[in-house]
């Protein structure tokens, strides 16, 4: 009897401890990033965030080119992917909710989300880059092939499954009686979509976009392989650049000097904080939605 009492206590303790370990891991990540970037935080201060010169040879570390590169690629990718992911959401959530067609498309987007990012990068490098080079020659811009736009296109393909799977769910949650009320007033299906479904699924779609943005901001491999890795502010959308994640991937193992390493870790810290905030907002919106239903 005594023994079983103890085993219960032991078991409950183990459960609490595991919860505590998970908490400690996340706090530990944040703490390590702060501690190891403290030299850059102290020595560079705000200059890190406003200087656009990144030149490790002379010890200048400004993150602006990478912040701009990250914002450009992520938002271009979002803009490119949005019509497609909205179309898939409507396809699966409204027009073809059941049946073979929707199964096939569902299956396809699942497959797409399962492909590792390094393979997207490899494909981008061997397929998209030559294609972009041709397009750039036709457009009379320097034919790098690699660059911000190439990276954005690869990213766009990668985030379609995320936005669309959340979009599908929230569009399915739109109450049937709202739609029927609109139909009974003589609305066409397009008008129902435009005036009923999209407005009432708006916040869910916004959450889906936020979560996809979080993913796009932190995506490393595919971007690193096709962005061209240049540490200057990109002149145009065709120019090579670097994102926060790709500069870490490229330069982390080269950073032999303390301040250099510390600056790269500060980029990691920045990335951690930004994605944490974005994901937190996305999750909050999603949670509100599940209360409403």
């Amino acid at each position, binding site marked *: 009897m005594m023994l*079983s009492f103890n085993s219960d206590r032991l*078991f*409950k303790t183990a*459960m*609490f401890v*595991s*919860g505590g*370990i*998970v*908490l400690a*891991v*996340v706090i530990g*990540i944040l703490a*390590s990033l702060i501690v*190891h970037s403290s030299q850059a935080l102290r020595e560079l201060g705000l200059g890190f965030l406003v200087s656009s010169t990144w030149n490790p040879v002379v010890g200048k570390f400004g993150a602006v080119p990478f912040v701009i590169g990250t914002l450009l690629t992520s938002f271009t990718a979002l803009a490119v992917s949005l*019509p*497609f*992911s909205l*179309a*898939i959401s409507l*396809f699966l959530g409204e*027009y073809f909710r059941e049946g073979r067609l929707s199964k096939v*498309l569902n299956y396809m987007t*699942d*497959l*797409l989300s*399962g*492909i*590792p*990012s*390094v*393979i*997207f*990068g*490899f494909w981008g*490098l*061997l397929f998209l880059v030559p294609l972009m080079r041709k397009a750039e020659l036709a457009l009379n811009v320097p034919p790098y092939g690699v660059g911000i736009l190439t990276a954005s296109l690869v990213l766009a393909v990668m985030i379609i499954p995320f936005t669309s799977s959340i979009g599908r769910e929230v569009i399915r949650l739109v109450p049937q009686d709202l739609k029927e009320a609109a139909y009974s007033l003589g609305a*066409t*299906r*397009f008008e129902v*979509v435009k005036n009923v479904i999209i407005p009432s699924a708006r916040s869910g779609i916004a959450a889906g976009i936020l*979560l996809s943005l979080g993913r796009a*901001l*932190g*995506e*490393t*491999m595919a971007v690193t392989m096709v962005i061209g890795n240049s540490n200057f502010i990109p002149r145009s959308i065709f120019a090579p650049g670097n994102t926060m*994640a790709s500069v*870490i*991937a490229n330069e*982390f*193992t080269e950073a032999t000097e303390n301040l250099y390493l510390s600056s*790269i870790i500060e980029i*990691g810290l920045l*990335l951690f904080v930004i*994605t*944490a905030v974005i*994901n*937190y907002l996305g*999750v909050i919106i999603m949670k509100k939605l599940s209360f409403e239903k």
Partner: protein
Amino acid sequence: MNFRILKNNLFKWLVVVLSTVSIVPLVLILAQIFKNGASSVSFGFLVHLPKPPGETGGGISNAIVGTALLILIASVIAVPLGVLAGLFLAEYGKSRFAAVVRFVVNILQGVPSIVIGITAYLWIVVPMGHFSAVSGGVALAVMMLPVIVKSTEETLKLVPYSIREASLSLGANYTRTIMKVVLPAGLAGILSGVLIGIARIAGETAPLLFTAFGNPFMTYNVVKPMNSLPLLIFNYAMSPYPEWHRLAWGASFILVAFVLFMNLYSSHSFFL
């Protein structure tokens, strides 16, 4: 009136066309992997080491072994911890501590994998003084953890309270009830969470760049640098040698086949 119907039909076609267009990249990627990858996969490809550039032939045996070992290390750490933490959230989900844990699990799920790589470097590579498979395994475990915690919590919440009461009423204590009744009832969901977690980490490259690092030779030693399929694809894809590209395509073929198989296996749970 006609105009409205026209708009309606046009919009429906727009949705269908855009949806169809968005699977074109997938078809292209899969076709390329199949075309270039399937031809290079043979028995020798699976059991030989990569050859230096200029020599034909060679395989990716070290990367296959490395990926298997890295997944094993990550699972040994993340599965018990994640299941227990998920159990904690399901059992004590209303406490404030649980709310904090749930919050950080959500945060952890969104942390970019490259940042986790940096952390594993700081935690393990720096004190050890060199790159190692263990540090890569730890980085992957951190990536796998939120997936397992969440799927465990969600599965266990669905286990009806009545079967637990039935067990308690028969005199079984709490531990026994959890181990013999609640966990087995949720086993299918937990296992599918583990498989999804494995599928997520199998293709991860970024956290391994500064941890497992890669290694052109075969090694079973987990405190030494080790190769993995995604690392090999990255390194060989960025190289200028067609022969190495061929190896990368073959490795892509095997990796994609494995990841897709795991995803399908878990979502349709054929074996459960």
